[in-house]
């Protein structure tokens, strides 16, 4: 039995990574970068529906399920399952996002049969025994308690609340101690039944495996799942703006979360907005970094990124500065964002000189396939790359110097914003623990 394979001809330079589309005998689709140079296979996958679909009063359900899928499945209890993973030195993990439920598997290719079998078990037959359920619940509650004064978390939550109000996008993914206490084993079982289904599943694989074999492994891992589950549509939402919320805390440094409405991924101007944000707020030589960090030394870092949710796009950024300097930093932030919108000769020039990261960083970024914990945007890079790669060439070319300032204006005006003014800010202080300083 062979898997149907379709290699995409991507509109990329000659050396581009070849992404193959694999369809399993059972009809499951995966995207493969075959790389035989080291004996490792990395798998990332995502189901539709994340923590935003958690039932009222049970926020944190998806997050709790993610922590429990590898805590016992089928004939293996928690310990036996973990030891089985240890025995083959594979890592298997799950993670609840806002709109997706993610998983990852990394294994040496010699152990791939056992690794895919454990993955299949975790998805199709998780046990949710009392001991791991209560243990994971304790751990989650401890984490929530421990972080409840974390300035960054406070600012982030307040910001999403300002922007999305009561919409599920504003909910904390890990829930609250109360909502986590309310989650039952039956809730967890229903979650698995309704959400871990083949419809909407996206799988990306890189490493030491042939397309034909991957087809068989996909059926092994995902074939036993129901074809479809409960519909999980979220209500539409228009991000609200124009607010500033200040949370007082006794800390030496204030954390600012700022942002505004942005573009959804399916917006024809999404990639122009990506370029615009890159110029404004990504990397050492971004405009915000130059003005706020390099010239004036007000912050260690300032940046923003696009957050394209399905129902609403956002641009979200952050900075941290000594309490007394928050006003100055926000003034500079406003001025730079205004300059981006007005465009002008200097603005256009800056855009056209500033090329997007060339292929290595953007399309063929060469990092470990797995084994690190990338942030939400990076998490499904491979899957997403595969989906957008064929369109990206065109769109990137469109993101020219002329387009970006216009886009900055559009992004604002479309959402009834006052030009030049960050839409929402939530301010509080922010810690980070890393003993090794980095610039």
């Amino acid at each position, binding site marked *: 039995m062979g898997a149907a394979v379709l290699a995409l001809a991507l509109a990329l330079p000659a*050396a581009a990574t070849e992404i193959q589309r694999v369809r399993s005998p059972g009809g499951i689709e995966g995207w493969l970068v075959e790389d035989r*140079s*080291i004996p*490792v296979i*990395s798998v990332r996958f995502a189901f539709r529906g994340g923590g935003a679909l958690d039932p009222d009063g049970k926020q944190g359900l998806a997050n709790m399920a993610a922590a429990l899928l590898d805590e016992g499945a089928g004939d293996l209890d928690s*310990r036996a399952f*973990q*030891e089985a993973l*240890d025995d083959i*030195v594979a890592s298997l993990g799950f993670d609840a996002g806002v709109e997706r439920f993610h998983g990852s598997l990394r294994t*040496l290719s010699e152990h791939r049969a056992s690794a895919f079998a454990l993955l299949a078990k975790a998805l199709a037959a998780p046990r949710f025994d009392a001991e791991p359920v209560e*243990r994971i619940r*304790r*751990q989650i*509650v*401890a984490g*929530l*308690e*421990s972080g*409840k*004064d974390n300035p960054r978390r406070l600012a982030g939550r307040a910001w999403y609340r300002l922007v999305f109000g009561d919409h599920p996008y504003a909910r904390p993914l890990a829930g609250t101690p109360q909502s986590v206490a309310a989650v039952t084993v039956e809730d967890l079982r229903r979650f698995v039944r309704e959400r871990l289904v083949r419809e909407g599943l996206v799988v990306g694989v890189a*490493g030491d495996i042939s397309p034909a074999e991957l087809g068989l492994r996909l059926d092994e891992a995902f074939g036993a799942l129901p074809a479809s589950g409960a519909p999980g549509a979220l209500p539409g939402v228009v991000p609200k703006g124009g607010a500033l919320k200040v949370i007082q805390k006794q*800390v*030496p*440094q204030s*954390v600012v979360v700022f942002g505004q409405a942005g573009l959804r991924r399916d917006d024809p101007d999404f990639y122009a907005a990506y370029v615009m944000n890159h110029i404004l707020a990504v*990397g*050492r*030589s971004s405009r915000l970094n130059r003005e706020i960090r*390099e*010239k*004036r*030394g007000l912050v*260690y870092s300032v940046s923003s990124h696009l957050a394209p949710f399905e129902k609403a796009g956002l641009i979200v950024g952050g900075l*941290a500065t*000594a309490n007394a300097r928050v006003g100055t930093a926000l003034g500079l932030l406003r001025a730079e964002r205004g300059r981006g919108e007005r465009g002008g000769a200097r603005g256009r020039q800056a855009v056209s000189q*500033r*090329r*997007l*990261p*060339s*292929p*290595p*960083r953007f399309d*063929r970024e*060469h*990092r*470990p*396939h797995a084994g690190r914990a990338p942030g939400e945007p990076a998490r499904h890079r491979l899957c997403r790359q595969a989906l957008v790669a064929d369109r990206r060439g065109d769109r990137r070319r469109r993101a020219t110097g002329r387009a970006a300032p216009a886009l900055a204006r559009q992004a604002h005006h479309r959402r009834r914003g006052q030009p030049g003014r960050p839409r929402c800010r939530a301010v509080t*202080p*922010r*810690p*980070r*623990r*890393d*003993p*090794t*300083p*980095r*610039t």
Partner: protein
Amino acid sequence: MFDPGTFTLDNGLQVVVVENARAPIVVHALWYRVGAADEPPGKSGIAHFLEHLMFKGTPSVPSGAFSRIVAENGGSDNAFTSQDYTAYVQRVASDKLELVMRMEADRMVNLRLTEEKATPERGVVREERRTRTGNSPGAQLYERRRAVTYLRHPYRIPVIGWKSEIDGLTARDALAFYRARYAPNNAILIVAGDTTVDEVRRLARKHYGPLPRRKVPERTRAGEPDQLAAKRVTLKSPRVHVPSVSITWRAPSFAAGETRHAYPLLLLADMLGGGSTSRLHRRLVIEEKSASGAAAGYLGTALDMGEFTVSASALAGGDIDRVEALLLDEIARVAQHGVTEAELRRSKRAMLAAAIYARDGLGAAPRVIGRALTTGRTIADVEAWPERIAAVDAAAVRDAARAVFVERRSVTAVLLPEPAG
């Protein structure tokens, strides 16, 4: 491990090349054998401040241009400072290797600094310190714990520097440190990715070759007296809501002290604290239901001495004394009875697999090799890593545990909530 090629230029620059053609990308990393522990007294933070100021320009690459040029060519760059090393790293398309090499060689000798350039950057470093330490009670405790661990040795000083001393650092201080320590014979160049030893040799000769060898001071740090009394630091803060505890013992490193214990300690840290099947997790989190997490770590990559740490967080409203007692009980157990063959086998398997996973991507090879060569080890040591892990037996682990887990050489750090008042 990485099967690197290596050669040394006439001016003393050691060059290491790890060929890897999986993607048309290279990582270019320049490591200096200098870190915070090499700073002059009263100038804490100068190594790290200089690292920031290295982006402030030369006659041919003006202030801010280094990273801009890297970005315009599709790459990314970063730098970092530790107690024993300082490194500058760029990741670019392989046809841009010469570009970054030219710029990195240029700033090894041509840095131009003024107080005007240094002033805003000092503000950046102050904010960095506030972000990392000022806002985090846990990081403040870590800093204090280190300061208490060492009586004399500069490892007692935080890499980023004490606040009062950062405030006094100047461009002149940074230049003095730069001139004393930045030289080809005090650096290691590591290039990993889609290139060849021959190509790197050609480019390195061209760009780094002409830089003059300079006399660099010996890395002599203050000696550390033996620890005769156990120590304890406790930090209370209204911002802490879940207590935690760590216990640290001074230990040999891969390069200093009873180095035969280093590989056994690395394995022991995994057996005690590596994942949910480890001893500490099983006992504290699963069986006793006393902790929300437990870990163990061995810091062996230090030039002068290492540390072995076990730590755990309580549950919400939990009893930290109980957690500490359980940690100590597990330590006593391992020192007395050692570990089982099955545990050792499992940890070895994990470590040896990690060596394979480390080849997945370009980041690990420069990091592992750079750290080794700046902390007293050789490429042969790096390459022998899998064999040395494989050679460890249970008796060696028990001996290492007995040598290290001595109460009078311990430092206990406790983080406690404090009712807001």
